[in-house]
């Protein structure tokens, strides 16, 4: 309180500035500031950082400078102001503008889901010195009612086919294990991530056995604790499984299982907030950018774009605020395709880099929760059948949850999040009942649907800057494994932003240009 009072008191011409700035576009601060800004932006990615002492509370509108000459004359006035602002004082700000985002932020992160918050966390954690960059997270829905993070089933596994995915997941599991060291906030209780170290059990038919074997080899090389099991061993270990049609199974002994995504989200939010990241409840509706023309080495003419302003529309209001920024991070999950389009990605003749869209779209996925009194017990891992149907235990009361990804032709309309119960009857239940005969009698208790941030190109993440919209960075497209990779992806993006290249895990294969070049990073284990 004292601190705020002081800021207010010392802000010269404070009231005037507030009135001037609070609605709409042009502001004093911006005019003063932007001269140096627009002209001088030539530096490589790592050098946009501005230095500032650490101060999360400043919102740009309340800061003033100490007057140069007329200070003594102002002192009594300032004192009065301080007095009136101190508790019990009569000062009322004419308008409350605290809900508006700041007018300037070094980095604007679009989307406050687990990926966006993780990027914010790592940016703040890796910045040097502390408080060097200002980070703003724009999230349009604080209830996260449609965000994939809150609607996921929280699984984490290393049983992928692409080494990068395995590494990301291994990093993340280490993060989750030490979550109370990474996300510790003084005076706040420790987080309980509710990790179930129960492992994933992937089943393969004869056709898939060879692929599974080679995948497990890669996984072991990367350090995952995965073992192969024959149908015989499978029967011994999990007598409730019908091994008909199963040729091989791979089972994660460690680091795999499921956890509470909501806890991770809240933990990140709490930590990031304490580190001085700003949040804004609003929707990104527009980018203001400039373009310039260059030639590539092969002589092609390309248009480079740079985003200067992000327009944030305030929730349930017509009001919007332009936020001047140096960098935009597209972490809008299932909606990141739209955000990319807003920035002009994919607007160009087809077949060129300019005309290459971000191939990330919403795909609706159902999750059903059922009760089965005779169902498998406490040892139940996260089982993924060769048919693609999966289930896991939920709590102790013989409840299970599971689902299945539809085929390309059966993709439901992603317009809303309504659940199709016939899908369970037709597509999920039959394979599961065949695999686990106990599931022949069960009762569906509830169900929900969520959106995969589905990469139609190769079902893998898109990480790093766009080659043409030079200051838009992607962290999206994880197609159903984004939650478990979020801690690592956040770090990768932060490294890219701060150092200009990846350091911990090399995610160069996940660069946007693969869509143009047609180089798929195909992940076989998509659930």
């Amino acid at each position, binding site marked *: 309180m004292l601190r705020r009072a002081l800021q207010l008191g010392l802000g010269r011409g404070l009231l005037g500035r507030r009135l001037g700035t609070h609605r709409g576009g042009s502001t004093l601060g911006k005019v003063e500031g932007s001269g*140096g800004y627009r002209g001088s932006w030539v530096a490589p990615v790592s050098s946009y950082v*501005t230095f500032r002492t650490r*101060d999360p509370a400043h919102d740009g509108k309340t800061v003033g*400078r100490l007057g140069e000459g007329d200070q003594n004359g102002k002192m009594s006035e300032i004192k009065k102001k301080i007095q009136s602002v101190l508790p019990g004082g009569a000062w009322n700000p004419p308008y409350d503008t605290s809900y508006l985002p700041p007018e300037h*932020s070094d980095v604007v992160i679009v989307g406050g889901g687990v990926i966006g918050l993780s990027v914010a966390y790592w940016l703040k954690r890796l910045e040097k010195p502390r408080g060097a960059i200002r980070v703003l997270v724009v999230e349009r829905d604080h209830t996260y009612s449609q965000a994939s993070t809150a609607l996921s089933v929280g699984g984490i596994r290393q049983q992928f086919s692409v080494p990068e995915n395995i590494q990301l997941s291994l990093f993340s599991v280490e993060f989750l294990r030490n979550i109370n060291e990474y996300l510790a906030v003084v005076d706040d209780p420790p987080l309980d991530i509710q990790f179930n170290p129960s492992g994933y059990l992937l089943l393969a038919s004869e056709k898939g056995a060879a692929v599974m074997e080679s995948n497990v080899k890669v996984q072991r090389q990367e350090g995952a604790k995965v073992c192969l099991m024959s149908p015989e061993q499978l029967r011994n270990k999990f007598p409730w499984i019908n091994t008909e049609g199963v040729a091989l199974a791979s089972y994660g002994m460690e680091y795999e299982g499921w956890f509470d995504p909501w806890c991770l989200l809240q933990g990140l939010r709490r930590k990031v907030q304490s580190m001085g990241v*700003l949040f804004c409840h609003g929707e990104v509706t527009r980018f203001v950018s400039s373009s310039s023309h260059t030639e590539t080495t092969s002589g092609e003419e390309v248009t480079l774009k740079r985003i200067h302003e992000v327009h944030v529309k305030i929730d349930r209001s017509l009001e919007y605020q332009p936020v001047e920024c140096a960098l935009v991070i597209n972490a809008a999950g299932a909606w990141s395709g739209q955000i990319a389009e807003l920035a002009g990605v994919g607007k160009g003749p087809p077949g060129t880099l300019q005309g290459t869209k971000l191939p990330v779209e919403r795909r609706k996925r159902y999750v059903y929760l059922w009760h089965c009194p005779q169902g498998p017990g406490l040892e139940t891992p996260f089982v993924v059948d060769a048919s693609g149907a999966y289930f896991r235990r939920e709590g*102790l009361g013989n*409840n299970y949850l599971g689902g299945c990804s539809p085929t390309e032709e059966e993709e439901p309309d992603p317009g809303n999040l309504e659940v199709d119960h016939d899908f369970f009857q037709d597509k999920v239940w039959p394979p599961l009942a065949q695999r686990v005969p106990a599931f022949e009698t069960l009762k569906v208790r509830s169900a929900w649907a969520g959106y995969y941030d589905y990469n139609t190109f190769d079902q893998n993440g898109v990480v790093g800057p766009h080659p043409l919209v030079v200051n838009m960075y992607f962290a999206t497209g994880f197609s159903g494994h984004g939650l478990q990779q979020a801690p690592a992806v956040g770090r990768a993006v932060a490294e890219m932003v701060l150092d200009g290249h990846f350091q911990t895990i090399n995610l160069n294969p996940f660069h946007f240009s693969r869509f143009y070049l047609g180089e798929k990073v195909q992940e076989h284990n998509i659930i």
Partner: protein
Amino acid sequence: MGLGKTKPLHLVMPVWNRGTRGIRGLSRAVALEGSQKKGRSLLQFLADRFYDVQALREYLLQKQVLKVHQKNRPFTYIKERFGPHAAGAYFILKQGGAVKFQGKEWIRSDAHGHFSLDFLKFQAVPVEAVNASGCAINYQGLDSLLALKELRSLWLQRCPHVDDWCLGRLHPLANSLQELSLAGCPRISERGLASLHHLQNLRRLDISDLHAVSNPGLTRILVEEMLPSCQASLLGSNSLPGPGEVSRPGEPHSPNPVTSPDMATTTSRNPALDLSRDSKYPYSNVLLARFPVGHPSAHGPLRHPWPPLAKRPEPPWPPRVPANPSATNAALVKTGLGLCSSFPR
């Protein structure tokens, strides 16, 4: 990054920069001006120090964590020189626990933490029992234990840093481990216990006084179902030897006293072990952990006013349905909790 000097790099709002720096810089300016604004410089002082105090506390928090890590670092030299068994024993003794080599007496450190290094000569003799009760052993420290391939009994009672993640990695001991006591570990929940199904040779399992387990009666039944040849104990852990009594080898545990079979007694807590009162580990209080954030007043006006936390979106989540209470009771009646009172050898 050292870019402070390069002017053009002040890309975003140089004015703003000066302004903020001013908050700290001001105190200097004021001091130069003289004493007339003493009150203000005091405020300034406090405001300045606020971050320092905060930084200091963050530092102390880190120190605490670091201390546990320090205690759990592996003794690679001993391992290379004297083999994994000696290294494991050394690690446990250093931590204040006790170890028993096959066919030898229990070894433990004295009140000052000293112990004789005679066991380094045992070399080929494997460790068969470890009592690490009350030790600061954590996930990392388990490395030393997992190398003990012939470990038959393991006591990890009241270990503050043993959690579900640790249980998830006990599977390398599956071939040898027969007895495991986890009584009173404040961070172990039913989620970790589920991963004990790897330990197929387990005969006895003490899972009493686990405050993070939400449903002890049902959990015990489910654990017994999962490990059919094992007896899981829920009763008070008084009867199992603590580190002090361990020096009586060979003596079987006195059977747990059979008390009234109702739930109240089975979950009654030994006050001496009740770690949940020590509010350092409020893990049982899941609610608190779930919605801990953001009472804005707690941190003064310096926090950005992020709107109050939304509850978990209702319809789809939580899918967690509480364990069916009637099923629990029925099952409890069926088994009769008295059954677990004596361990068959």
